[in-house]
């Protein structure tokens, strides 16, 4: 039996990568290189974003090029609240999630009427609209964006200003999200989602409200995307419309596909892998993108071939 073993190996790989991330603080301390920790945190944040995207790409079968908008909204929610002095995590984090979910609801409702490439394009359209709105927010730096003045307090404490603490938060969230997503994927809702993806007519005739099932998935994914945006803003200390950019959305999609759309841990692995590889290549050579391009092409062809072999 091939499938189960593959799935198992996916879990093992993800666990390995997570362990690497978890060891980053130790390595950073031993080598006296704080950047290693920052890199690991960043990889973790992207893994969270990728898992949220995997939720709609993998489970619901809907590839979206508008996912960056959720990150952007999460980040801007923090920036705006911080401007009013309300950056307290207990407040701003739920707000970021809710804001992104609230945006996902109506746009999802419209977008989910379409499938396939049309869905990709309509999500892109909504993403671009959000991008242009963010760009026109002169108070928040317009196109230039704005730095965050400080790491958000956690119940008033300055805990998150410590890189190790923030790193631990990201890893904990990632782990919790992975477990939840796996459970969800294997659960009743996940199965209904799958039926809605493969045979919408059949699912409806069995009594599932196909649009609602998909919309719930989309809004969930949007909310978690908002969470990732909040984290990314804190990690880079800067918020700008580039977070809404479709290229970021494309990059997330590449992470998810690279790691394997079928499982959340695959998406997380893809994200961690890609962040590390890109960083490595950028250090090696300015034309590292050629290597990256070849890598992606090779990975895709290899996967196609393996798929054909059964």
């Amino acid at each position, binding site marked *: 039996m091939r499938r189960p073993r593959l799935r198992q190996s996916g879990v093992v790989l993800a666990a390995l990568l997570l362990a690497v991330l978890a060891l980053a603080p130790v390595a950073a301390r031993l080598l006296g290189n*704080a*950047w290693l920790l*920052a890199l690991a945190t960043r990889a973790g944040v992207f893994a969270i974003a990728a898992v949220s995207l995997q939720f709609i790409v993998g489970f619901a079968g809907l590839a979206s090029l508008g996912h960056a908008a959720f990150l952007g909204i999460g980040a801007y929610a923090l920036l705006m609240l911080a401007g009013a002095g309300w950056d307290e995590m207990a407040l701003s984090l739920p707000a970021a999630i809710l804001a992104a979910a609230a945006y996902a609801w109506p746009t999802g409702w419209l977008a989910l009427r379409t499938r396939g490439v049309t869905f990709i394009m309509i999500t892109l359209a909504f993403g671009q609209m959000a991008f242009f709105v963010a760009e026109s927010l002169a108070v928040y730096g317009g196109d*230039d964006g704005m*730095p965050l003045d400080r790491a958000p307090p956690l119940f008033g404490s300055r805990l998150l200003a410590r890189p190790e603490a923030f790193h631990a938060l990201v890893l904990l969230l990632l782990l919790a999200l992975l477990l939840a997503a796996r459970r969800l994927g294997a659960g009743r809702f996940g199965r209904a989602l799958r039926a809605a993806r493969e045979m919408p007519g059949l699912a409806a005739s069995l009594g599932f409200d196909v649009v609602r099932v998909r919309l719930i998935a989309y809004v969930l994914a949007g909310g978690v995307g908002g969470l990732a945006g909040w984290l990314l803003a804190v990690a880079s200390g800067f918020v*700008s419309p580039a*977070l809404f950019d479709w290229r970021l959305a494309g990059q997330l999609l590449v992470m998810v596909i690279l790691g394997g759309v079928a499982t959340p841990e695959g998406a997380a692995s893809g994200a961690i892998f890609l962040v590390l590889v890109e960083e490595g290549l*950028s*250090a090696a050579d300015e034309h590292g993108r050629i290597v990256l391009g070849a890598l992606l092409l090779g990975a895709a062809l290899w996967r196609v071939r393996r798929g054909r072999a059964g």
Partner: protein
Amino acid sequence: AQAPVKVGVLVTLSGPGAVLGQQVRDGVALALKDRDGKLGGRPAELVVVDDELKPDVAAARARRLVESDRVDFVIGPIFSNILGAIFRPVTEGGAVLVSPNAGSSVFAGRQCSPDFFVTSYENTQIHAVLGEYAQRQGYKRAFLLAPNYQAGKDAVAGFRSRFRGEVVAEDYVPLTTVDFQADLARIADARPDVIFTFMPGGLGVALVRQFHQSGLADRIPFLSAFTVDESTLPAEQDAALGLYGAMTWAPDMDNAANRKFVGEYLAAYHAVPGSYAMQGYDALQLIDSALARTGGTTSDRAKLHAALHAADFASPRGAFRFNTNGYPIQDFYLVKAAKRPDGLYQTEIVQKVFSDWADEFAAACPLK
């Protein structure tokens, strides 16, 4: 032997902005080669990274330079949104940031830092030079054209800060515009006395060529910022001849430092350097001059700041000094695109518009 000084170069090397990043990198490399790879007598090492024109990536890479590569100086970036993202990671990480191009007003005023120096200018100055020139020429009706993002709006504001005539239209186009025909038709229809535009990179190439093809070039004076320069001229070619721009320098400036710089750059890269290359060149010269003064150490911050502030080097643009906020006080010129005898294109000085001009934000800077 002394441990090498490490200098990070964080510029845009991919996407449409890559030309500018390459010029800076090449200017920096050229200056270092001139010094046999030494800064202030210490062996030096460059660490070049691409910011991909993404703020979050840039912030991460800036931290890498400071925390992992442990550079003492960072030269960069090209674009002001990136400047916002790397400013704190670099200056708070204990390195000195020298911007070879981006000069946001934000960091010229209240938020100025002793660890931040700019070898270009404050962004809006260039546009104001053109506004001033249009005003002095007595143009009555101006048509303004800019891309739809913050820098485009700043450009229009900069021009208007000096131009008192009528603005017949402020036309903002999407950054992804490839075809300006619609805008050119509006210009032809409006018949202004002068056009002011800010169209960096490929946008400028498309605009200039289409402007030329439309036949408007003979009829309406064309003032532009970052639209007709050495980064775009190789593509614009004859279509750009006679179009005006503004800058603090041009390759045809007649002084020894400039002749050396332009000559060596041409020999090394087979292209005429633009202002980006010159400012990168100066950024490295600045670091070298400061280290020479401190005897190669960077540990005494006050001494290092003072040494940098002295700006004791020969800039290709001639007289060069810093204001209290780390931005330059310098001359600004009207320049014009021209063809060189060797068939290459360059900008040439037409007239001086401002002398020893300082940006207006410095007053708000608490540094003395």
